[in-house]
């Protein structure tokens, strides 16, 4: 499954990623981090298309994006 990992201690709560996400997969977290900022959290993981727009706009580079890829076909299945 596509997923993103948000470094909540790095997040300053500018919410540019919420604005950028086309699938509304990111929302504000109600719990502050150690710096007193309210970071974002990843919800609706099933909707994520791994477009990486959230990571692209994040000024604090707090988001890592993972895309689901299918297992490489073995030689036998590829032949069939």
């Amino acid at each position, binding site marked *: 499954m596509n*997923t993103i990992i948000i470094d909540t201690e790095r997040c300053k709560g*500018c*919410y540019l990623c919420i*604005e950028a996400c086309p699938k509304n997969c990111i929302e504000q977290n109600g719990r502050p981090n150690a710096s007193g900022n309210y970071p974002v959290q990843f919800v609706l993981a099933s909707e994520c298309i791994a477009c990486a*727009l959230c990571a692209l706009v994040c*000024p604090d580079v707090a988001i*890592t*994006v993972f*895309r689901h890829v299918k297992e490489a076909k073995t030689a036998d299945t590829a032949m069939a």
Partner: protein
Amino acid sequence: MSKVIFERPRYLCDKVTHYCAGCTHGTAHRLVAEAIEHFGVGEKAVAVAPAGCSVMLYKYFDVDSVEAPHGRALAVGTGIKRARPDLFVFTYQGDGDLASIGLCETMHAANRGEGITVIYVNNAVYGMTGGQMAPTTLLGQRTTTTPAGRKHDNEGHPLKMAEMMATLEGVLYSERVALYDPKQIRRARKAIFHAFEVQTKHNGFGFVEVLSACPTNLHLSPVQSQKWVENEMCAAFPLGLYKDVTAKPPELPAATPEAEVNGVSQGTCHAV
């Protein structure tokens, strides 16, 4: 199976920046760090840091750095590049640093065509010192030193550096980009990569002006400040390529007798 498609670049330190929430300095830092990694210049790169919000840039880039006196980043960069031409030298400067106090050093380094890459972050205000008017402040923009808005008859017009750089013979590449949405960030990435290439391939002066948002001093939310850059700032500072002498000239179709005839007739039409 999952594949990482976006992660922190190698040359960006694992440190939380001191920038305010929504400040696009962080995005510009990331793009520069990606360019350092892409061109493989990490071991021989020297960053010249300015005075301004990005004064502590040496903490954030995993490359050698020099802190220049206010505005004199390109004078320091010139010294480094002339003493060690094998190094990759880039400066990262704000608008108060490059376009105000350091304008003299900037213009002369550009005019000499030093082999330095300049990343110029224009946020239309003096950010670090509390939001005073910068040379790039827009007409009508309220700052702490222009509380009624900037007026051209008293404070002059916003200074357009990308256009000024394009007029100088020594500059090989000058472009203005913005960071207000993903599309513009991709364009900015391309421009910064090209400016790096101008130095690595042609040893020339490459200049990229990056329009950036300062939510704190604009008194807007981060999202609103990006809209402000898109609507207000891009109107005053048109985005685009102003000079690129490294680009290949467009290929013209082979001249045929007919084309020559058409050319003459078009010329006549033009004269009429």
